[in-house]
């Protein structure tokens, strides 16, 4: 049984690898069944993965289940990750977000989802990390970038991303004409993307 040896990865000696490259490499090694690499990937991403699940499903026990399912899905489908299409962290968060949204929608399927949204939740530009002093530089950069969005764009994205609402529901909640919420979401994400320097 021979494994193909990949070309050498990682930065040349002496140059620190960019975080994105590190995660991509850990994911690639995980795809080969390297459990230690996956453990490192877990440690590097667990706060964002669990935190997102928690924010969306609200219940800590369910958040833990969702995050576990997401990480196992990452492991199971790690061979499908294509670094040419995007970053490893985006791939991970996409999996986690989908699972969290599916969970919150199915949990409330029997009862009509509450679209009479009130400002119960913290708004998107409030950092929810427990220790504000530990808020990462990246989180601050994101918060700053979000100030460049209109209030409607920000609210629409918050309801979609953290609330797990469909764009149609978002339009209802924000009292927007039907079909315009998806435009707000798209425009807001484009602005965020451009401000954060994501390659399109």
């Amino acid at each position, binding site marked *: 049984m021979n494994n193909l040896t990949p070309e050498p990865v990682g930065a040349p000696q002496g140059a620190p690898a960019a975080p994105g490259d590190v995660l991509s490499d850990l994911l690639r090694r995980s795809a080969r069944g390297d459990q230690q690499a996956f453990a490192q990937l877990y440690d590097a991403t667990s706060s964002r993965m669990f935190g997102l699940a928690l924010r969306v499903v609200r219940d800590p026990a369910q958040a833990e289940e969702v995050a576990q399912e997401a990480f*196992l899905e990452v492991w199971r489908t790690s061979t499908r990750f294509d670094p040419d299409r995007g970053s490893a962290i985006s791939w991970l968060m996409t999996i986690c977000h989908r699972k969290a949204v599916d969970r919150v929608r199915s949990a409330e399927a029997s009862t009509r989802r509450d679209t009479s949204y009130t400002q119960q939740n913290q708004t998107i530009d409030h950092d929810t990390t427990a220790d504000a002093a530990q808020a990462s530089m990246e989180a601050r950069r994101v918060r700053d970038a979000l100030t460049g969005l209109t209030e409607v764009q920000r609210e629409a994205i918050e309801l979609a991303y953290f609330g797990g609402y469909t764009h149609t529901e978002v339009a209802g909640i924000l009292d927007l004409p039907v079909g315009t919420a998806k435009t707000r979401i798209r425009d807001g994400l484009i602005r965020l993307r451009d401000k954060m320097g994501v390659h399109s």
Partner: protein
Amino acid sequence: MSGDIHALSGAYAVDAVDDIERAQFERHLADCSTCRAEVDSLREAGALISHMSAAAAPDSLRASVLAGIQTVRPVPPVIAAAAERGRSTKRRFPLLVAAAALIAVGAAGATVIDVVRSDSSVEQASSSRTDRVLQASDAVRTPVRDLPGGGTVSVVRSASLKQAVILTEDMPAAPDLHTYELWLQRDGVMVPAGQIAGGTNTVLLDGDASTADAVGITIEAAGEPATEPSDEVVDVIGFEQA
């Protein structure tokens, strides 16, 4: 409505679509590379938002995840389809015309990954032949598709090696006293090509696959492989390319 479909890219990137919209948009994505690229970039943007909600994960999560990966096997890598045009299937096994949904290779989901087989705990005499097919430079893989009864399947074929390998995932177990049998379809005739268990398997098909039009899976009585396929067809996977 088609002019409107691109406008869903942002909502789709953050899962703000219902199931119907999701299915519609994913069909659109298969044909629209602009939207695919945009969705990828907007997902990057969406992922950044998760910085705002970061929260320390409980130790129990780490333990359960690291325990879980011991029992879950990474799926095999996808091999990009060759750009060549393949043979089109003229003849089909008559009973399977409805079931044989021949899918064009090269769907949006196909990606090029390092061709490495994940570690397998099953050592078979033919495993090295299986490897050679999977890693052949002319290996072409059908898109992964859902099996009607559950699970997924795809087939990798190497014309130069004249062999094909079937990759299944999460197939339900065959009914009691039955087994799944594999067939190569050539000119409308189904030729026995081996057997496969339920679950997740990678199996080399017996015989020359280079002239075959499709791979069939049927349910047969356990024991001696059937020489003619039963009516209980699980699926037919065509090699047709668009």
